[in-house]
């Protein structure tokens, strides 16, 4: 069994003007496709062949760099696409709203803290809102394609939100202005999907 490049749940131009169609197309059809193909090549003929991505990520500390990097890249991008929507933006609702308010003191405080984690990640990586095993929320960032599902992650848990801050995620539209990209991300966040992940 091999992994397949997941279809985007919307058209390449659906997140305009916040995220441009050209970025989405290259990001999905080249970068995400590359991680998917490289992951398949890396697990072919190993005992990971046929395992689900969660299992693979939970054992990366014992795997090759190719499996870590491409397994992370495959998973992270799939999650990222689902966490955005042309009807996104606004604020979280329900239990997630309550948890964010309780943890960070309010949505604006959460937004500031998450944006700062994303803006200050040096080099390539991701910013995360993570649900820890005790149910509490935490903001963190990881280098490259690492994520909170990896067994050797500093902050381990379920990703509720993930923001790609590799330069390929924003350079065509925002160039060196990563903070502008981060604030546009907030205009397209699919909070329904985030809530679903929080409740699972």
């Amino acid at each position, binding site marked *: 069994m091999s992994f397949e490049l997941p279809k985007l749940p919307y058209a390449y131009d659906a997140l305009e003007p916040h995220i441009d169609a050209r970025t989405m197309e290259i990001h999905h059809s080249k970068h995400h496709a590359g991680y998917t193909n490289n992951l398949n090549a890396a697990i072919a003929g190993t005992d990971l062949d046929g395992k689900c991505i969660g299992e693979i990520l939970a054992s990366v500390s014992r795997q090759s760099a190719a499996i870590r990097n491409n397994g992370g890249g495959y998973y992270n991008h799939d999650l990222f696409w689902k966490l955005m929507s042309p009807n996104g933006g606004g604020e979280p609702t329900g239990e997630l709203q309550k948890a964010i308010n309780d943890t960070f003191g309010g949505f604006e405080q959460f937004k500031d803290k998450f944006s700062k984690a994303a803006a200050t990640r040096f080099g390539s990586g991701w910013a995360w809102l993570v649900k820890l095993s005790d149910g509490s929320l935490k903001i963190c960032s990881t280098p490259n394609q690492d994520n909170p599902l990896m067994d050797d992650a500093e902050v381990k848990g379920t990703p509720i939100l993930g923001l790609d801050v590799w330069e390929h995620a924003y*350079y065509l539209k925002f160039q060196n202005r990563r903070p502008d990209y981060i604030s546009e991300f907030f205009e397209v966040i699919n909070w329904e999907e985030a809530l679903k992940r929080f409740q699972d």
Partner: protein
Amino acid sequence: MKHELPKLPYALNALEPLISQRTLEFHYGKHHQAYVNNLNNLIEGTSFENADLVDIILKSDGGIFNNAAQVFNHTFYFMALKPRGGGKPRNKLYDALVYTFGTFEKFKEEFSKAGATLFGSGWVWLVADANNKLSIVKTSNAANPLCDNLTPIMTLDVWEHAYYLDTQNARPKYIENFWELIDWELIETRFENL
């Protein structure tokens, strides 16, 4: 000591079409400049305030290290590019490359492969050790071989900002273009001054 953005020995459009003016406007005018500005702001009032750049790289960590090393790395990269560069090095450097890698083409191949396979943001370096022995190393993010007692001879920036406006995900294409812009004379001088 206030660190300054070095003047480039060529115009921002001089590397066209291999590296676009737009890329250099951001890469040099925004990224390199920001590292210089951040460094100056961060060292103000610290023990690094009057230190030279290499000293800061060797002794600092965190934000000061990242910005100091990125100032060094970008200067080292930009200064060794020129319009109508490329070709091969001559003299001692050529001999040393052939001695180490077998042929110049093999060196080029290994260096390009290191650039294409570095995961994430970083730099590829040709370095010399204390016995002037050459090797190729990759470093992540801002990391610099000086910290491993290796002397940089040449470098290639493979942060996505170095090429994304020109070649997007096709990093190997950018690396191919890089070979056409190398100022070998300058790099020979670096090697001969070891």
